[in-house]
């Protein structure tokens, strides 16, 4: 069953990996921006909603310890129907991976190195992610153990440095936007990034103790929410209403640093943060896609899949949107429903059917 992946990870490693995953693209585009000064409220509500999704799919995972989502689907539904749904699930991971690549290239070509064509960033990022994926889950986790604390440290440092420039009046008035709009924005926050933790359904079987998955996921979501909130507070406090103008508020905030003695410009930190966390997120999604496909088609080894999937992801990232405007529009409109389907509906229906069919059957004896 799990001969495709021999590694095992511990609970705390899962939390860190999850935090890195959540920070993913949120380091530069934090969710809930449309809510202006109430964005932090949107993030909190979104995190709660994401937490609810998490409770649902972790219940599913606990019901079938040691089985990845693909295997669960095959067990709960008939092998053919299950494989079909699994393919759709894996497609979502693949699509999401191409989003990450897309966000990545957009960011770099907008802010840092304008002249370089998109594809260079995409190719290099994917090569590195492929290296990580080829080495298995344990290596990805180990990388996250080094990268995430570093990023968190950077985040905290930049936050502390921003404090002198924060104008507290920027947070007022609170609750200005009407409630139903706030909920809609929170839902978009729930879907990106918190609900994306649904992909960890493919990772849970490799925990040392699968039962822990629920607790650890919740912790991961909470931590992620806290960190993203810190970024958001910085953005709201320092930039105030102009935040709505900027494509990448977190980046702008750091540009505004005016520390008296250190004359250097720190925005490279934000860039590095995005690079490392984006890499992690892509690696996880890439891994989920490759592992999922491997399990669906009962392959003996994952190696031959890695490069083709990578290339396809890059291609998809390019043809997906014709420009960054479409990217944003997708995220604020269609994505809400599209993602909810995968993050909530599929696990929920699987869970219900599983409960209905009284699976997994307790087998007695040996």
């Amino acid at each position: 069953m799990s001969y495709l992946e021999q590694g095992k990870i511990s609970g705390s490693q899962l939390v860190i990996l999850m935090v890195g995953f959540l920070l993913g693209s949120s380091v530069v585009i934090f969710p809930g921006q449309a809510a202006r000064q109430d964005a932090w409220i949107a993030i909190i509500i979104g995190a709660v909603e994401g937490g609810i999704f998490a409770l649902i799919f972790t219940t599913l995972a606990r019901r079938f310890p040691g089985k990845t989502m693909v295997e669960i689907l095959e067990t709960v539904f008939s092998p053919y129907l299950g494989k079909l749904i699994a393919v759709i699930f894996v497609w979502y991971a693949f699509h999401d991976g191409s989003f990450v690549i897309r966000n990545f290239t957009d960011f770099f070509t907008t802010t840092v190195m304008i002249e370089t064509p998109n594809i260079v960033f995409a190719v290099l990022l994917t090569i590195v992610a492929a290296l990580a994926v080829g080495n298995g889950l344990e290596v990805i986790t180990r990388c996250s153990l080094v990268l995430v604390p570093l990023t968190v440290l950077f985040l905290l440092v930049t936050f502390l440095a921003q404090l002198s420039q924060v104008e507290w009046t920027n947070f007022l008035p609170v609750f200005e936007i009407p409630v139903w709009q706030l909920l809609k924005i929170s839902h978009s926050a729930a879907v990106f990034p918190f609900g994306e933790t649904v992909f960890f359904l493919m990772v849970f079987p490799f925990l040392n103790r699968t039962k822990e998955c629920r607790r650890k996921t919740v912790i991961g979501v909470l931590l992620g929410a806290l960190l993203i909130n810190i970024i958001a507070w910085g953005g709201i406090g320092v930039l105030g209403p102009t935040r709505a103008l900027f494509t990448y508020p977190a980046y702008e905030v750091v540009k505004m640093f005016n520390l008296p003695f250190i004359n250097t410009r720190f925005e490279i930190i934000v860039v590095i943060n995005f690079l490392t966390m984006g890499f992690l997120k892509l690696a996880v999604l890439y891994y989920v896609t490759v592992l999922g496909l491997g399990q669906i088609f009962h392959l003996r080894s994952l190696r031959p899949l890695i490069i083709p999937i990578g290339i396809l992801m890059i291609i998809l990232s390019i043809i997906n949107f014709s420009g960054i405007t479409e990217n944003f529009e997708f995220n604020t409109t269609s994505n809400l429903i599209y993602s909810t389907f995968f993050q909530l509906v599929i696990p929920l229906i699987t869970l219900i059917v599983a409960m209905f069919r009284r699976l997994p059957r307790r087998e007695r004896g040996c």
Partner: protein
Amino acid sequence: MKLQNRLTFSILIIAMTLIGSGCWSYRELETLGIVSGAGFDLGKDPEQVLLTVQVIKASKGKGGGNGSLGDGQGQGSRPQPVAIVESNGATAFEAVRNAVSKFSRRLYWPHNQILIVGKEAAENGVKNYLNFGIRQTELRPTAWIMISPGKAGDLIRAPGEMGQIPAMEIKDMLQAQSATSEIGSFTFYDFIERLMSKTTAPLATQIRLNKEGEVELAGTAIFKGEKLVGFIGKKETRGLLWVIGKIKSGVVIVKAPANKGKVSLGIIHAAGKIQAETKNDSVKITVKVNVQSGLGEQTGDLDTSKPEVIKSLARREATVIRNEINAAFKKAQELNADIFGFGEAVHRADFKAWKKLEPRWDEIFPKLKVKLIVKTNISLNGLINKPISQK
């Protein structure tokens, strides 16, 4: 494939990706024209933009300590550290690109310190330049924005006093203003922030060439929306700064009681708060200013060791401050520009009422009544207790 073949293949692919496509963003330092200051004016016809740019000239003699051999260029006693470039275009962006026809290097903006807009261009509307500034990643939102009552180009061309790069000197001048707090310094970003609010008036420092041809900072320029509407002098600027809390330090001169000369009070700390209340469509604004100061110097021999004297000085100080603020307020109401941000204060206090009040702010503002509370406290005396006098 065999391991060797695979390795060779992968290395080839990576190498081709990197090398074959060339290095795009690679910029040698020498190809960059580092812009230190820029000025926008109206071009020959009002549709055109005239851009004047100060580009830093990095001379070799500065870097090499032992280079008496290689430095054959002997540039005279005072090498000019900057070059001035002028160019025209239909929009700011185009003007920047057109500079290439007169200048060998590519303009490099991230180290730009100041942005000056000439009066005519400002009266025409600055949105053009702002959009350029903020959408491009190279300009930094922390550059200082200033308005000149004449042409921005003249100021950009003015040489620096200390032989340094003129724009840097202007920047240092701006930062030194906190000693008197009579000139406000506003960044590009501050300007845009104010512009985004429908009611608050954007502000910029006023900079001009005085009669001796020196660069001088002289008050504040007030905008309504994107257009320049007027200037206020140093005294009113300070009144404004009291309210928005940007006073760092300064001197308030107070007439001593019983005609015993004048006393200078140094400001240690000043904070201003704006509070708004709404009551059935009418707006009440309260401004609270809290000032801590210390005795600086005095002419005359007022005995400063008695507490009543100190209290009386504090009261007079409050009066002086109040006058400054009132002067600023009057001017603002004349120009119908909400330079203090009272509108946003109302927004923060009661956003439902603000929805109705905002469109009418232009009518409400000139008639606005503001309650001003100034609290002063003289906490320090300096090193001497009593004045030097002959008894």
